[in-house]
């Protein structure tokens, strides 16, 4: 490797690209050439680096100066000042207050921001995701080497079990237990499937891992394959994630060349191959059995469970299915040990959680923090407070299938058990923060519209129930509903929850139940007073009725 004096990183996630990161990158290359610095300065596009308010970011190492948002016309000045003259380009620096993630850690040393704890996203934004050397230089494939050369499959499973890692796809099932089920299942071959069909509204954490650190998923899948006795893995990546797919494909070919995939990995006699399977646009394919149907080339309609995929999965064979974020936790656990991992988070929910913060807050974006932080802390510290100083009304967690958290629960620690006790769920990690101008009926209507469209139609309770619930909520927003409709909604919610075949229909009931539990007066005002207290709903049906 050639010695370079400075390293310039340009953020290249989809949002940065939409804001001209490619032009900034090209302009940087041109200007560096113009100043004849090309032998001393390296320019690289990196994935996502965290916060989304100053994109595209340009980060210059070794000084770790963060510039942003950078426009192509800023580049000549930046190159001349920083890279030629060696001083910080005045006026272009991103405010440290607007940054988070690893960058926050850098600025935290100057005492400006509380640090996050990054395990899953430790490398995202810091390494070149298209260079396997970068991954290796940052502890990459070390866990794989450790496991394949010094641990038995049972010991790997034992370590994951002891770490207390729980599935990050939403359900929170203990990962080690699932691995043991597959390892003990009869039948061969066995498969490892990575669920990268991230489509919970408001969730894009997995995309950042895939785009920013694709090798971590490859390493984790080989580890999982070794542990459960599988020699083949599938990554089911949603069709819309093109950059993620390209980066994965590139990483797989690099890993093959380097001998981390293929035959006789690390001379251990263990073989493993990974295939990428692209989705074609269907939320339901995030449900694990629908995902398997889709890989097999059919409509993504969930299977009846049991039997579970751990015994009857892909092509009827024992199959381990883990979410991207779950898998990304595995190599650090094997590398550093279960005891280290248990040093983060809470007793029953160790480790960190990646959250996306969205909605009516001053800062939207992505954070990785220890399990057990509260919603109030997230909003105040990372969301920088409510936008326009508005009052917090509710947060919707975990995409559409999560819960509605009223203000009274904002001091509940966010971990699996505390949330379960409070009757709410963490879901996939999206935190949609809503202010007092949000109408709960309108919000529930939007959520039910989502479920109604995404229902696969296989089972009646879900197909008809989501449609009927949507129609009733729409009537409420138009001021043409009766109080009896509320009872009907609750009956529908019960039916959805109890009789739907899969999680989609079961969770479609949650918004209905939650708004009636926490905001019943507001819902009733739409009916009895024919007024939307927040002024959001059109209430247009009234006029039509009067006319």
């Amino acid at each position, binding site marked *: 490797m050639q010695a370079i004096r400075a390293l310039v990183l340009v953020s290249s996630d989809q*949002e940065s690209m939409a804001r001209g990161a490619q032009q900034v990158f090209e302009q940087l290359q041109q200007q560096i050439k113009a100043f004849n610095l090309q032998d001393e300065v390296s320019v690289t596009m990196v994935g996502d680096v965290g916060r989304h308010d100053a994109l595209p970011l340009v980060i210059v190492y070794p000084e770790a100066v963060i510039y942003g948002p950078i426009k192509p016309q800023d580049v000549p000045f930046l190159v001349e000042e920083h890279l030629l003259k060696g001083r910080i380009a005045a006026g272009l620096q991103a405010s440290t207050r607007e940054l988070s993630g690893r960058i926050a850690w850098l600025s935290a040393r100057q005492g400006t921001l509380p640090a996050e704890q990054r395990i899953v996203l430790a490398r995202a934004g810091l390494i070149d995701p298209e260079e396997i050397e970068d991954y290796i230089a940052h502890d990459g494939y070390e866990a794989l080497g450790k496991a394949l050369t010094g641990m038995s499959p049972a010991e790997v499973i034992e370590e994951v079990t002891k770490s207390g890692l729980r599935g990050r796809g939403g359900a929170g099932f203990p990962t080690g237990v699932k691995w043991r089920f597959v390892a003990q299942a009869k039948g061969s071959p066995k498969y490892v499937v990575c669920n990268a069909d991230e*489509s919970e*509204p408001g969730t894009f954490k997995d995309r950042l891992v895939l785009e920013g650190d694709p090798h971590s998923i490859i390493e984790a899948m080989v580890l999982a394959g070794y542990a459960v006795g599988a020699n083949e893995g599938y990554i089911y990546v949603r069709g819309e994630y093109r950059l993620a797919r390209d980066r994965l494909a590139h990483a797989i070919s690099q890993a093959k060349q380097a001998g981390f995939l293929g035959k006789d990995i690390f001379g251990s006699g263990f073989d493993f191959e990974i295939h990428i399977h692209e*989705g*074609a646009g269907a939320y339901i394919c995030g449900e694990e059995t629908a995902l398997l149907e889709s890989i097999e080339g059919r409509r*993504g309609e969930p299977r009846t469970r049991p039997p579970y995929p751990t015994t009857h999965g892909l092509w009827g064979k024992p199959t381990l299915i883990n979410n991207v974020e779950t898998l990304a936790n595995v190599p650090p656990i094997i590398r550093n040990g279960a005891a280290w991992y248990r040093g983060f988070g809470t007793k029953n929910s160790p480790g960190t959680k990646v959250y996306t913060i969205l*909605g009516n807050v001053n800062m939207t974006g992505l954070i990785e923090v220890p399990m057990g932080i509260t919603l109030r802390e997230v909003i105040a510290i990372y969301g920088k407070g409510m936008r326009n100083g508005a009052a917090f009304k509710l947060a919707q967690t975990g995409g559409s299938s999560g819960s509605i958290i009223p203000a009274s629960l904002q001091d509940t620690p966010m971990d699996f058990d505390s949330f379960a006790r409070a009757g709410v769920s963490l879901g996939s990690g999206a935190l949609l923060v809503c202010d007092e101008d949000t109408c709960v009926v309108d919000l529930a209507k*939007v959520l039910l519209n989502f479920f109604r*469209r995404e229902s696969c139609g296989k089972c009646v309770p879900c197909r008809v129930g989501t449609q009927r619930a949507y129609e009733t909520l729409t009537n409420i927003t138009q001021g043409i509903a009766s109080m009896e409709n509320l009872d009907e909604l609750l009956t529908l919610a019960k039916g959805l929850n109890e009789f739907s075949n899969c999680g989609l229909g079961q969770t479609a009931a949650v918004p209905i139940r939650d708004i009636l539990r926490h905001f019943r007066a507001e819902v009733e005002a739409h009916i009895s007073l024919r007024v939307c207290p927040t002024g959001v709903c059109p209430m247009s049906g009234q006029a039509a009725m009067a006319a």
Partner: protein
Amino acid sequence: MDNSVGNGKGARFVVKEAVARHGRSPSELIPVLTEVNQELGYLPQEALAEIGRQMHLPMSQVLSVASFYRMLSTKPRGRHVIQFCENAPCHVVNGRKTWQALLDELGLQPGETSADGKWTLLTTSCLGICGVGPVMIIDDDIYGNVDPKQLPDILARYA
């Protein structure tokens, strides 16, 4: 007649190429459909029939899969496809007003293609770019923080 759809290559030829690339295994049906859809712009009837023939699958199965996934279309689409995110994260940050403005601007309902064949308007599920909602995609161009006032300018960029 439809041998000239999309980029001018015949449906049969496109299917043959896609099947050659992915193979005839039933698990390759979605990749094959995706590729043919990309090449032809949509999945015309004769392409579906050809896929069934070449992959030895019943037409019913090919059509059931083709009609299930959002990124596959069995109907022709306009020259430009607009996808507007209708999920909650975009909705609560002014997506509702922007969506209404877009409907007014185009004079279309979701799922419709304009009479001149220029626009197809679709709603889409979350695209994972929620940090800059409301989000709209036209063809492959992503627009974030879309404001009703910007809509005429954005639409004017497309011929």
